[in-house]
């Protein structure tokens, strides 16, 4: 019996791969979600009204059934017993496993500011939360989004589409601070503002104001009150490691795994947003929390669980998104240090930047024209040496040009 806790990108990928490798063995997926495996990336567009919920389903109940994967929906796991190799659900049910995969993902962080317990404060992580936001947005006039990361920015734009007056509050001095540099950030910010979203950057939330009956009515920033009746918290996520920690599995910022996605317990694996792996550029532990990484980890974990040896190659930060009509790809270390050779290409609203160190690509940033970004991204992942010239930052720099060098 294989048990997988979590039905997100990693969990679903693992479940399907296990079935692909072994047609007979029982597979059970346990998840707190009641909605079947859906694309979390769609949530802001669902909020905007661009897509319907049903559009975001990636694998339905029927599809899980026909793959003979048992899904326990809406069920919480309360504990794991590595010695006896079983798990306990909140309902009291115990299920035994040969191999267990922890794909519990992460949860949005609600920062501990005063007033964070008010109603009308939402995170954007689950389909249910999206429904709540849509309901709240129907009667709200203005919203504040805390955090100018990928989710925060997309949600802010979605709410603007719904007709709300939106302000994004970000404590760092630019939007998408981890994915973009200052120049790129400015390019995107211009577009975002043209869509009607206001930006309050380099600003921290001091306090959340609420009405006497506990409804949010404003945010206090820089000593001033920003009135709103809807708040979105998008300041980051935290890996759901509690189950593992309680079970005595080695946990840092995420569940620590080796190159086989195996935890400190031999029969227990971890994959996806909950897993802590190594970043190829820094050599440091990192919890990547991105979709392609989660899928890859799920596949690797599944293969090892099924007895097929597979090794995860250290990856790098990988982000792609479209914000306010501008495509963005950000890979690896896009700032570099003072000695790095930084090559840029800037023409109109197309900005591309390649950070080179000792003839190896360390970081890639493309805004506006993202063609062939994957070629450069792969060079980051593989840390391949390249003979390069300014051409490497141009949108037409292709795989053939790389081969010819």
């Amino acid at each position: 019996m294989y048990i997988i806790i979590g039905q997100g990108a990693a969990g679903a990928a693992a479940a399907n791969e296990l079935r692909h490798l072994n047609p007979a063995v029982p597979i059970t997926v346990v998840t707190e979600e009641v909605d079947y495996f859906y694309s979390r990336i769609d949530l802001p567009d669902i909020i905007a009204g661009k897509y319907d919920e049903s559009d975001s389903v990636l694998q339905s109940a029927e599809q899980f059934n026909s793959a003979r994967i048992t899904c326990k929906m809406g069920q919480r796991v309360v504990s794991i017993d590595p010695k006896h190799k079983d798990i306990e659900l909140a309902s009291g049910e115990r299920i035994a496993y040969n191999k267990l995969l922890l794909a519990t993902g992460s949860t949005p962080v609600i920062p501990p500011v005063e007033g964070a317990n008010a109603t009308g404060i939402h995170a954007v992580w689950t389909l249910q939360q999206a429904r709540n936001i849509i309901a709240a947005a129907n009667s709200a006039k203005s919203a504040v989004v805390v955090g100018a990361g990928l989710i925060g920015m997309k949600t802010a734009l979605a709410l603007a589409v719904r007709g709300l007056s939106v302000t994004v509050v970000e404590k760092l001095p630019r939007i998408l601070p981890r994915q973009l540099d200052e120049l790129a950030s400015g390019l995107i910010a211009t577009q975002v503002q043209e869509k009607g979203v206001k930006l309050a950057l380099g600003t921290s939330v001091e306090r959340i104001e609420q009405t006497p009956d506990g409804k949010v009515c404003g945010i206090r920033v820089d000593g001033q009150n920003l009135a709103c009746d809807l708040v979105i918290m998008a300041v980051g996520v935290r890996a759901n490691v509690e189950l593992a920690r309680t079970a005595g599995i080695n946990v840092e910022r995420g569940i620590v795994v080796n190159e086989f996605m195996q935890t400190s317990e031999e029969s227990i694996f971890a994959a996806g947003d909950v897993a802590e792996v190594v970043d190829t550029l820094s050599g440091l532990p990192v919890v990547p929390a991105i979709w392609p990484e989660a899928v890859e980890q799920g596949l690797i974990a599944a293969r090892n669980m099924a007895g097929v040896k597979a090794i995860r190659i250290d990856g790098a930060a990988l982000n792609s998104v479209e914000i306010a009509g501008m495509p963005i790809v950000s890979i690896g270390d896009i700032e570099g240090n003072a000695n790095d050779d930084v090559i840029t290409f800037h023409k109109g609203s197309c900005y591309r930047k390649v950070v080179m160190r000792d003839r190896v690509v360390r970081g890639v940033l493309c805004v506006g024209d993202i063609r062939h970004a994957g070629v450069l991204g792969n060079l980051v992942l593989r840390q391949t040496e390249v003979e390069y010239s300014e051409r490497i930052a141009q949108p037409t720099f292709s795989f053939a040009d790389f081969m010819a060098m």
Partner: protein
Amino acid sequence: MKEIRKKSADAAVNKLIVKAHRSQTDLAWDRADAMQPQCGFGRIGICCTDCYEGPCRVNPFDENEQYSICGRNQQDLTAGFFLKKAVSGAAALVNLAEEFGAVTEKVVLKSVLQNSDTMVAPTDYTKRYAEIGDTVVQALSAINGIKGREQSSVTAANLGVLQANSINILLHGHIPPRVTSLLTAAAMKQSDPVNLIGMCGGEASGSTPLPVVTNYDSQETPLLSGAVDLLVVGDQCVMPAVITLAGRMGVAVVGASTLTDSEAADQALLKAAAGFTRRAGKVVDIPDYKIEMAVSGHASFAPTLTALAKGYAKGVVNGIVYLGGCGSIVNTQDAAIVKLAKNLSEDGYFVVTAGCAGVALAKANMCQAGASEVWKAVLPEEVSPVLYVGSCHDAGEFLLIARAAADQGLPVFAIMPEITHSKPLATAIGFLAQGITTYVEISEAAYVPAITLQGQLLPLSEWGHLPQALAETAAAAK
């Protein structure tokens, strides 16, 4: 491209390339990069666009021979491609001669016209090329008749010939000497100093050679200095990009053909002066590279010839080589021709050069009496072992030199390693018609049957083989 090749070997040009990069100004090199890969069919001359049933291109990899729609095979196509270029170059030279004031025999004009027919299935290449060669020789001689170099002089090359405190007028392309004279006269009426400089045929125009600011592929760079006050454009060799760039930078452009009289020339000077005024107080970016160069011709060649003949008899001198051509954007500008010239010079060949190739050698400091002790011992005092005779349309000087040299029994060759425009190609055919063995780096040349004429046209595939090949040809000639 395994190594990243430098765009230019010219340090001055490179400075302005960097400036262009910073201001995001596209230059020819950027456009060439964006053009990669270039179509191989056109590159090796197996594509025809002569008629509207085309274009026709044949598969060079097929085991079976492929024919174009009207029945041309690969050889026919490459031969036709080459022939058209040769004819177009001959026409261009005849045009120049006419423009410069020569009176071309109608029969010469007709000959060029006849050779312009595209659909005529050529049956006799030898006859065709002989006609083209003769036409070219006549045109070059006519040009020489109008502006042959009477005496030697000294001028300078490279971007440093621009002067921050003068009105800089850049004569670009092949401009008739009378136009240069009109401008010179108009210039003298100015209170501010006027600096007439040239490039791509505009230099060495008129009786006194103008300083030459750069050569073909870098023709956009002088504008980047910000110091050009008027651009006068002649025929041919003017990239449309230069005119566009001048427009963007607010530099006035005047067609040389519009300068028909002194009034027009005065108007042009007014524009130039206005440009100069507009940039008063602004800092200009003139790279500090200015190399002295000697300019001479057949008229002053006798003492040198005597010295060379002596040296040949002693076995110190091996012959005379003409180095011409334009440069090619896919190679590092100037690098190859300079290296070739140095090797040939070290091997005992006296070099005669002209055009953009000549400008490259001048920029590399070669067109001066140099450091070579060996050559100092051979040549008359202050005579450079590399003789710059003017623009590529001044190749007539070399024809005269070659004849004189042949009379003295000196072996004579020509090498055009990087041809871009058809004039030097046609010039090569003209050389052939005069019995001068010529090497061009154009592969189609290998495809043209019976192109021997009196001389030989040889594709320059392996430069490493060149010394041996020259030696063999010289030995055969003895």
